[in-house]
């Protein structure tokens, strides 16, 4: 028995190398094709990223940071890549009716990894100077702006998948909010995965929020078809002095989808950032978030929630780097895991030597509903300054039986009582949402999800 087990491990390891090989060959053979169909700004660092990928390979559970996300199976699928940038025959505006009532966001679509050219009515009222376009177009029209920022954060990452993204990503979206411009409504980006064959999408996004500006971003992930999808997205965000930035990620995709999203944020002095990662329905999800507080007096809130059942996997890997003094960060992640769901959380809190007067809190709370559900959590503190207040807490447990009993006594049916408790548990994270319309909508979706339904948006014909 034991011998067989080792055999399997050895084989798996070899296979991982094999999947890598296939992409390495593809890259070497088609470098020119990849480059000629890409945003020019991405080509500069391509070879370097490729070299790094060759060195690091795809992450296996042996890599400490990916200990709790096993991507070997999803990576073994023979995905198609759209390196020639063929347009997919779909007009999302015709079929998509986002029903977050009253949100009336500026609405954009990314189909697989391509930004969809738009002539949506509401988008025409974007304030002057604000740019929302594909990275490819931006590299031509605003090359200076793009080149100043692109890959500045991603290149520092030591992650095989980020390197892979650097080698293969050809496009993505680009958002620019000029100095002191306050966006009156959120920008909503809808990622749609649409393909007839198993498909992999690599995209690179760039968001620049200049000094004193304010922007809210809502990124929704959806899948249309029932094939295997693998999305590997890297988003870089630069938040200037005194700027506000909010990033909401709402994931509601098919179980056959593997989503690796890397969100890298750099904050300047007095800036304020909110990140909220809501995973409502998914296959395998891995969120890498790194927020660097590179100025004084920054404020950062990062929170997230996962409602998982079946064999879903959710792993949030977060780092908050306090590089300058007098900043404040707060992290809250909550998971409700049912069936054979697997949850992972890593919260790395790093306080640099001179970052005195740092206040940093981190909290991770988890509920396991079935004995087959698994949760792994690693809250980590690395502190090099002495005048700081940092704390973290983590709990894993069940629903409070006393509270259940109290409600049953008062005639509330068991199912309803459980739902109420779970909803109250998740509500802390929902309360962090600063867009009221979205908050109400998420509340409804969470409730529906907790009642057993798939929390797709009504009126949206994308989710299956």
């Amino acid at each position, binding site marked *: 028995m034991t011998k067989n087990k080792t055999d399997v491990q050895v084989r798996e390891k070899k296979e991982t190398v094999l999947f890598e090989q296939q992409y390495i060959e593809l890259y070497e053979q088609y470098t020119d094709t990849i480059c000629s169909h890409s945003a020019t700004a991405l080509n500069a660092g391509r070879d370097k990223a490729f070299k790094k990928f060759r060195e690091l390979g795809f992450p296996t559970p042996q890599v400490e940071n990916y200990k709790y996300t096993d991507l070997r199976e999803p990576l073994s699928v023979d995905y198609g890549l759209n390196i020639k940038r063929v347009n997919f025959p779909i007009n999302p505006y015709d079929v998509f009716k986002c029903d977050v009532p009253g949100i009336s966001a500026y609405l954009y679509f990314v189909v697989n990894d391509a930004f969809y050219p738009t002539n949506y009515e509401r988008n025409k009222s974007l304030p002057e100077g604000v740019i929302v376009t594909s990275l490819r177009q931006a590299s031509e029209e605003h090359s200076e702006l793009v080149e100043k920022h692109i890959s500045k954060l991603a290149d520092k990452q030591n992650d095989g998948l980020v390197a892979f993204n650097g080698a293969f990503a050809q496009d993505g979206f680009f958002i620019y909010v000029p100095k002191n411009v306050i966006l009156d409504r959120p920008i909503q980006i809808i990622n749609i995965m649409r393909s007839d064959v198993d498909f992999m999408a690599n995209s690179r996004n760039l968001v620049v929020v200049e000094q004193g500006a304010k922007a809210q971003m809502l990124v929704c992930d959806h899948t249309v078809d029932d094939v295997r999808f693998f999305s590997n997205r890297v988003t870089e965000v630069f938040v200037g002095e005194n700027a506000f930035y909010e990033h909401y990620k709402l994931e509601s995709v098919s179980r056959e989808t593997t989503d690796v999203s890397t969100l890298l944020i750099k904050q300047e002095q007095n800036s304020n950032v909110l990140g909220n990662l809501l995973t409502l329905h998914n296959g395998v999800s891995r969120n890498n978030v790194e927020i660097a507080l590179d100025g004084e007096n920054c404020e950062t809130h990062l929170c997230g929630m996962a409602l998982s059942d079946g064999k879903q996997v959710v792993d949030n890997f977060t780092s908050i780097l306090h590089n300058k003094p007098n900043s404040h960060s707060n992290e809250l992640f909550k998971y409700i895991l049912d069936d054979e769901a697997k949850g992972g959380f890593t919260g790395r809190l790093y306080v640099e*030597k001179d970052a005195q007067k740092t206040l940093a809190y981190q909290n991770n709370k988890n509920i396991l509903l079935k004995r087959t559900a698994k949760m*792994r959590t690693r*809250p980590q503190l690395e502190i090099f300054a002495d005048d700081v207040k940092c704390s973290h807490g*983590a709990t894993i447990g069940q629903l409070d039986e006393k509270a259940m009993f109290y409600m049953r006594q008062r005639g509330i049916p068991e199912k309803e009582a459980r739902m109420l408790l779970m909803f109250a548990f998740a509500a802390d994270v929902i309360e962090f949402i600063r867009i009221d319309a979205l908050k109400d909508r998420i509340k409804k979706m969470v409730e529906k999800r907790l009642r057993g339904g798939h929390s797709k948006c009504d009126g949206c014909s994308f989710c299956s």
Partner: protein
Amino acid sequence: MSDEIIYEVTQNDYKYGFTTDIETEIIPPGLSEDVVRLISKKKDEPEWLLDFRLKAYRHWKTLKMPDWAYLDIPPIDFQAISYFAAPRKNAPKSLDEVDPELLKTFDKLGIPLEEQKILSGVAVDAVMDSVSVKTTFRENLAEMGIIFCSFSEAVREHPDLVQKYLASVVPYADNYFAALNSAVFSDGSFAYIPKGVRCPMELSTYFRINAANTGQFERTLIVAEEGSYVSYLEGCTAPMRDENQLHAAVVEIVVLKDAEVKYSTVQNWYPGDKDGNGGVYNFVTKRGICKGENSRLSWTQVETGSAITWKYPSTILMGDNSSAEFYSVAVTNNHQQADTGTKMIHIGKNTSSHILSKGISAGQSNNSYRGLVRVNPKAENARNFSQCDSLLLGDKCGAHTFPYMEVNNDTAIIEHEATTSKISEDQIFYCNQRGIDTETAVGLIVNGYAKEVLNKLPMEFAVEAQKLLQITLEGSVG
């Protein structure tokens, strides 16, 4: 102000640094199968033990030095270390026969054998380098059926017991340093508490590293039979040395049904000087297993010494209703590095564990807590509470926390909390207001901070532990 105090504290030299002149028998440095055979031969060991050593050595050769810890370990040349050193005198039967130099050493430490024997009633198995020199109160214990002797003696006189339990908790292939220890361990302590016996006194061993350039590879094995109880103490101090010394010990504890073991350590090996030169490398594997139902194991440690500490006393909670505790105070100063914590593996039903870790970093030291709480799928109703606090004294030191929680059963309740901060100005202000000067106030606060753990130590040890805290953080402890 407090900065000055911290400066003073960090400038303190190691007070227990001295070398005892005792003739030692040393084999030439280097490690090979022949050396392993030679050690075994010198100790007159049976065939099975030699096989065990050789197996461990062959496995060790295939391993690489681990680098995952938050430590900066200079490369260690294992061929430059001598693997065996024994005081040449024959084992004495009474105190009179003990080398006067050795007695003087203990005098300087304030723990003379006589005083221990007469005043505190502690049976002391004094280990100087690798061979056990003196065991007291043996006869008293023997009457109750308790075996407390050096490891090599146990191999000679109780081979069945040793063979049954050796490496049953820490297999030779467990990790790099456990494999090294299994191959070349020189001596250590063996304690066996028979069924239903409550050991009437604290068992303690004082470890010291003495000869230059010898690594010390201790092996401790404690077996508590059904319904028994023992409290075991281990204390360490080492003389001053310029070259780094390697210490890779293995401690195994087997707790059977309804038994209880309390294991306490005070570790104060030479931490190196102010600039980070010298000091002991302490790479220890300590693990206990709560094998039977209702068994209980409690670890308490006070870590003040060593240049590098790599130590995770862990417990496997196998028996139903078993419980484990881990209390730790780790103090690092100057250039010391510590990566320490615990593992609690819940396997049986209704098991519980409690972790309380207090780290204090000063100078330019780095102090990390690394812990794992794992609940296996069949471990119903497991309960864990972990608390890790770090206190930073000075702005050049670091405090880190790396807890891992892996839960595979929905009936588990696992809680973890950690804080990192410096001594709050409010607290100092409060004391100042009441006429307590800043120095005394800092002392009060640090003392109070560590009190929760120090209180868990047996009386005799609590005194020594407080003394050590005072020495490490002198000037700030009133």
